[in-house]
């Protein structure tokens, strides 16, 4: 008996080892053959949903906004809301609460979102958004504006005495704690989610099915809480190692002039804002917030740049500076920084006697601040005689630019004075609050209320400007309006800056260029204009989606900033024919010369992505740091400057799985515990009475103390 025991044991061991080896070989063979693919246990239970854009948390001096699924992930049974009735039924005592609602975009209204947030039956919302072909859904009244009624009204000394955005619900700035809202941008993933719902959850006659039901879990745990000062204080806790769980928002402003700025030269600033925001920040496209403004400003720069290059425009008495401010949607980050730097003698560059620098500029150098704010949606949207309104802080006093625009008569475009008493939300406010003598003119398509019914939403896309199925062409009303606006501004600028123009020629604004710019910013970035002005190494980043224009954190450089910089440089600069490779052009940029920049671009030559051929454009275009002064001064409670920061997160993901009824889960648990107790008891008894059970003798090899 003993000998056979000894022989059995090694045999059992060898069989076990053999099995392990075989199974490992089995796993290695999986890669080739689909037939033998063995899904893991995880894959049998969960299906990952990919292609997600989430609503996440932002914090400022006093509050937190956005969504966070803390401390636990948000989960619930899937519920498909196709109609308003579905939403009412999920809010009024549904079975199998809580739920994750799959929302049809037509129902994405502020009231619905808020109702679902407050209800304890709904834990999260997912909806489908096609990034490559976004369409505006049938919203009630065609209105969905989750922005504030008076954007950026938080800072001190900012004028805000009326509801400029009448339809604003303020959804973008609300706190959605323990809630998650995801946009699924991948068509296949969305169809998987719907299929899971259809297969398991949809009951007979629109009622609700029974267990097992399809559920979803949304992971979006935000690390920062309460406010920016809290985030930085928590960084001082010993175990956080001084690293805050949030990063300030910011990027870079882009500015440029046509000619070199002379000492104590007056400047005329032409400005617009570069960023946008939305409830799901990475879906901020902002067609009228402000792509229309950016495109118009670039068209003006292009018209004047061409005049400079073909010798028509020789010089201007006052310098014309084109500025694109970043971060303006979050309490004027870029413009407040420029004003701060100007007042501290750091704009454009800190004085360094060893370098060639443009002269220091201050608020007193500014003779006019012209801003484009909402220029894309006319009250009568298909008019070919657009009307624009001028908001100014010099009412009653005469200003040459203002008077020139008001008195334009022969071009089928009208500029009217606004009937409002105060300035609308615009970057100009940052200049106005520090020095009321800086003449500010804001050109907009609205008089006292925004025309943009989708302001601050992820549906403010090209369709919001076009309003029809007509494609973009030079005869489209929008293109005609923007072309007339750009032309009027270009001629006004030449007049007001006392430009020296040969032969009395007037500028020409290229409609085709406006169409291309709109296409590149709002339809897909993989367009021919971007391919020309970017360096060969940047071409890989171009895709078939519109340009996402959320400002993001100040440690990440946005593509939009670089694209706009290259466009401005291309339009206002001069090609240096002596330099023909990208590397040589890069080398021309020296630390000691801060007056020029050399930007290498692909040009319209056909070449592969690793080509060394570039055109080299010499221009007076620069970047300017756009991070809020509050972070430099470490004044996180500041009410004067933006304190917006984005929370860190460890993962954003979604998965779907089946659940069964809770009683079943409890029963399985109890069964397992019982099995465990019984096996422990049996083992213990066997251990105690082992000698009697197995009748071992003193000579057996199994005997041991």
């Amino acid at each position, binding site marked *: 008996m003993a000998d056979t025991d000894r022989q059995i044991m090694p045999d059992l061991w060898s069989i076990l080892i053999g099995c392990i080896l075989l199974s490992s070989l089995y796993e290695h063979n999986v890669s080739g053959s689909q037939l033998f693919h063995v899904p893991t246990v995880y894959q049998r239970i969960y299906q990952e949903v990919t292609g997600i854009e989430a609503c996440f948390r932002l914090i400022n001096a006093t509050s937190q906004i956005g969504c966070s699924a803390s*401390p636990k992930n948000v989960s619930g049974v899937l519920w498909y809301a196709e109609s308003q009735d579905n939403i009412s039924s999920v809010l009024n005592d549904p079975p199998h609460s809580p739920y994750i609602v799959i929302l049809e975009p037509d129902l994405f209204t502020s009231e619905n979102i808020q109702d679902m947030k407050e209800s304890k039956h709904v834990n999260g919302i997912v909806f489908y958004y096609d990034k490559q072909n976004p369409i505006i859904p049938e919203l009630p009244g065609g209105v969905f504006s989750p922005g504030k009624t008076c954007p950026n009204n938080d800072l001190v000394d900012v004028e805000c005495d009326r509801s400029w955005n009448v339809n604003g619900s303020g959804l973008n700035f609300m706190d959605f704690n323990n809630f998650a809202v995801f946009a699924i941008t991948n068509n296949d993933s969305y169809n998987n989610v719907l299929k899971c719902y259809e297969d398991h959850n949809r009951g007979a006659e629109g009622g609700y099915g029974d267990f097992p039901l399809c559920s979803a879990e949304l992971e979006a745990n935000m*690390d920062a*809480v309460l406010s920016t000062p809290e985030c930085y*204080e928590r960084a001082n*806790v*010993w175990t956080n190692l001084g690293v805050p769980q949030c990063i300030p928002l910011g990027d870079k402003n882009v500015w440029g002039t046509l000619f070199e700025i002379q000492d104590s030269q007056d400047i005329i600033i032409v400005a617009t804002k570069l960023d946008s925001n939305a409830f799901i920040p990475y879906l901020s496209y902002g067609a009228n917030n402000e792509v229309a403004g950016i495109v118009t400003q670039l068209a003006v720069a292009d018209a004047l740049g061409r005049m400079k290059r073909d010798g028509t425009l020789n010089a201007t008495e006052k310098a014309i500076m084109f500025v694109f401010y970043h971060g303006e949607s979050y309490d004027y980050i870029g413009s407040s920084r420029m004003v701060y730097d100007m007042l501290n003698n750091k704009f454009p560059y800190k004085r360094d006697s060893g370098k060639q620098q443009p002269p220091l500029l201050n608020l007193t150098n500014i003779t006019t601040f012209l801003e484009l704010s909402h220029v894309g949606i006319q009250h009568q949207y298909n008019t070919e005689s657009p009307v624009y309104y001028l908001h100014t802080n010099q009412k009653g006093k005469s200003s040459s630019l203002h008077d020139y625009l008001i008195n334009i008569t022969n071009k089928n475009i009208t500029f009217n004075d606004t009937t409002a008493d105060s300035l609308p939300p615009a970057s100009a406010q940052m200049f106005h609050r520090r020095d009321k003598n800086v003449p500010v003119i804001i050109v907009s398509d609205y008089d006292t209320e925004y025309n943009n019914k989708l302001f601050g939403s992820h549906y403010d896309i090209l369709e919001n400007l076009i309003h029809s199925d007509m494609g973009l062409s030079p005869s489209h009303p929008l293109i005609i309006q923007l072309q007339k606006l750009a032309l009027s501004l270009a001629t006004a600028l030449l007049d007001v800056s006392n430009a020296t123009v040969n032969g009395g020629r007037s500028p020409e604004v290229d409609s085709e260029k406006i169409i291309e710019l709109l296409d590149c910013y709002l339809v897909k970035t993989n367009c021919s204009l971007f391919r020309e002005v970017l360096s060969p190494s940047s071409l890989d980043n171009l895709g078939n989606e519109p340009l996402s224009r959320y400002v993001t954190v100040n440690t990440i450089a946005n593509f939009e900033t670089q694209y706009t910089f290259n466009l401005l440089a291309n339009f206002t600069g001069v090609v240096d024919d002596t330099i023909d490779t990208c590397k040589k052009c890069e080398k021309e940029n020296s630390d000691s010369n801060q007056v020029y920049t050399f930007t290498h671009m692909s040009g319209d030559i056909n070449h592969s992505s690793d080509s060394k051929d570039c055109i080299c454009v010499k221009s007076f275009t620069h970047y300017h740091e756009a991070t809020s002064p509050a972070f430099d001064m470490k004044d996180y409670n500041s009410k004067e400057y933006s304190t917006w920061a984005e929370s860190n997160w460890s993962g954003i993901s979604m998965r779907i799985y089946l659940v069964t009824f809770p009683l079943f889960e409890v029963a399985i648990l109890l069964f397992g515990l019982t099995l465990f107790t019984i096996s422990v008891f049996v083992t213990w008894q066997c251990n105690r009475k082992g000698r009697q059970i197995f009748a071992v003798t003193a000579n057996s090899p199994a005997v041991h103390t």
Partner: protein
Amino acid sequence: FVGVVNWIIKNFTLLIIMDISKVTPEEKLKICRKYFIIGCFALPFVWFVNVLWFFRDAFLRRNPPPPPKLRTYVGGSMIGFLIWLSVLIIWTCVYQTQRVNWGSAGIKISFVLPSGIP
């Protein structure tokens, strides 16, 4: 070095052998007293261990009556431990519920703050 080891063995016999039944009552008293004094240095769990080991000997054994001082030391250890326990429980409850209301002061006295919740 050998001297140090000898000293450790002589004074901390109980700690090393962990078998209290083999120790004489006089040695028990010595050990109990030693642990009581050690516990005075803000070590309430040493008092707790003291109580755990010698409670039966000090209060429940009648045949060889325990040295009288054993009771005082065990009693003292027990009272000290209970005081510490209640103070710690009260402080933990106050901290966990009130830290959010203390703002910056609450953060300054914290060692670990879980992220994502206030």
